[in-house]
């Protein structure tokens, strides 16, 4: 088990290989469909959001506003990442992202960006919204809440020991590619 703390260095990322279990502590920013499209179309990050050495989490959490105006995260599992494939590689490159948390994996363009820029894909357990919400110690801020709505906003989360598995590394390795090829071969034998 490798413990990662944000901001993460390129050296730490390059040391990771497909199949490694990690925990993430520090700051992560949620960002999903609307945010990726917006950034890819040239939109600026709001002041206060710095992704350099940072982690994007593909997640639309359930957030409850408390009486004192703060937010409580009551469910926070990953959403399917493949929808961000048209944008993710460019965003990694442009903003210096070191880690992308999501589920289901991403494709060739992102894999190439991980290799070129030093980034990894960190697979969280889909559907495990309660286990992962327990890792969110504080909701520090929210951006684009009005524009994109709660699930699509950028939430700045303080996390501790958030569990994930490296399924795409910075050396061209992808568990998703491996499992697809192996399962396609097994299926071909059974048709």
């Amino acid at each position: 088990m490798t413990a990662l703390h944000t901001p993460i260095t390129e050296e730490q990322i390059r040391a990771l290989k497909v199949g490694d279990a990690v925990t993430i502590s520090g700051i992560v920013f949620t960002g999903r469909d609307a945010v990726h499209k917006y950034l890819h179309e040239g939109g600026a990050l709001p002041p206060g959001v710095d992704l350099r050495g940072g982690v994007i989490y593909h997640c639309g959490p359930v957030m409850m506003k408390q009486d004192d105006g703060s937010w409580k995260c009551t469910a926070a599992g990953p959403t399917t990442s493949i929808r961000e494939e048209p944008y993710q590689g460019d965003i990694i490159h442009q903003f210096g992202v070191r880690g992308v948390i999501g589920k289901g994996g991403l494709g060739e363009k992102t894999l190439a960006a991980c290799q070129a820029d030093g980034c990894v894909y960190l697979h969280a357990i889909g559907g495990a919204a309660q286990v992962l919400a327990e890792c969110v110690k504080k909701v520090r801020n929210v951006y684009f809440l009005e524009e994109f709505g709660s699930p699509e906003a950028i939430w700045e989360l303080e996390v501790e020991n958030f569990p994930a598995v490296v399924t795409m590394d910075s050396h061209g390795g992808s568990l998703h590619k491996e499992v697809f090829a192996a399962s396609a071969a097994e299926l071909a034998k059974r048709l």
Partner: protein
Amino acid sequence: MEKLAETLIELIRRTSVEIPDDVNRALIASLEAEKKGTIAEGALKIIEQNIELAKRKSQPICQDTGSIIFYVDCPAGFDQLDFEATARAAVTAATKKGFLRQNSVDSLTGKNDGTNVGPGAPTVHFHQHRAPEVSVRLMLKGGGCENVGAQYSLPAEKLSANRDLDGCRRVILDAVLQAQGKGCGPGILGVCIGGDRATGYEFSKQQFLRTLEDRNANAELDALEQDVLKTANELGIGPMGFGGKATLLGVKICAANRLPASFFVSVSYMCWAYRRQGVNLGAAGQIEKWLY
């Protein structure tokens, strides 16, 4: 109406925070069968912890509380308009309580007003029967698994799938292969052979109202269900697509008549966070009995 609203909020809460017993049993069996020390086993352990935690904290199993689909069996004369109005109010109330995420987006403007109510949301299917009972079943189906559903038109030359049961088997297994871990496996398939493009998907989803242990009354379909389940679990896709044994927990297939010109096979995929519950209503709208 007040009692019915209360009942529906409780139905939504329980559906969102508790996994049905049959699904939990299947997940535990998958965990026991998975190879120890693998990331697949690790994924299933987190899933088990998550199920326990969601129930204890009365918070959503998955943050994507999904499409909200009610299935109502009712006698003739049942007031469907009143029921639907109450269901819509209950959905908004349950959202405020945090049992549902603010999950409904205007497709044209992109706005999410936070109510979970709008055109087509929630969906209520009514079915009349010649019995006095009113039963309400609820399914919450997340977007990740909805996105990996697939509809095939046979013959599908690339898959060598002709208009027969072997062709159906080929396309259903192709759907499993293409889904990989994107639908949050181990998953459950609901399949309809036949129908049109709309009814095919509709009937495929209704298959998720069956329990996992339920066997198909039609011998041919039963054999196909068992065969697809066994074969899919030999492919090594595993939980979350990490590789491993548990790719599917169940396969449920129905058939509907088709036009001579059409032969659709519609495949709906349900994630492991298989949220379905149901109640029989008493005369005042109270919960008389839980159905799963």
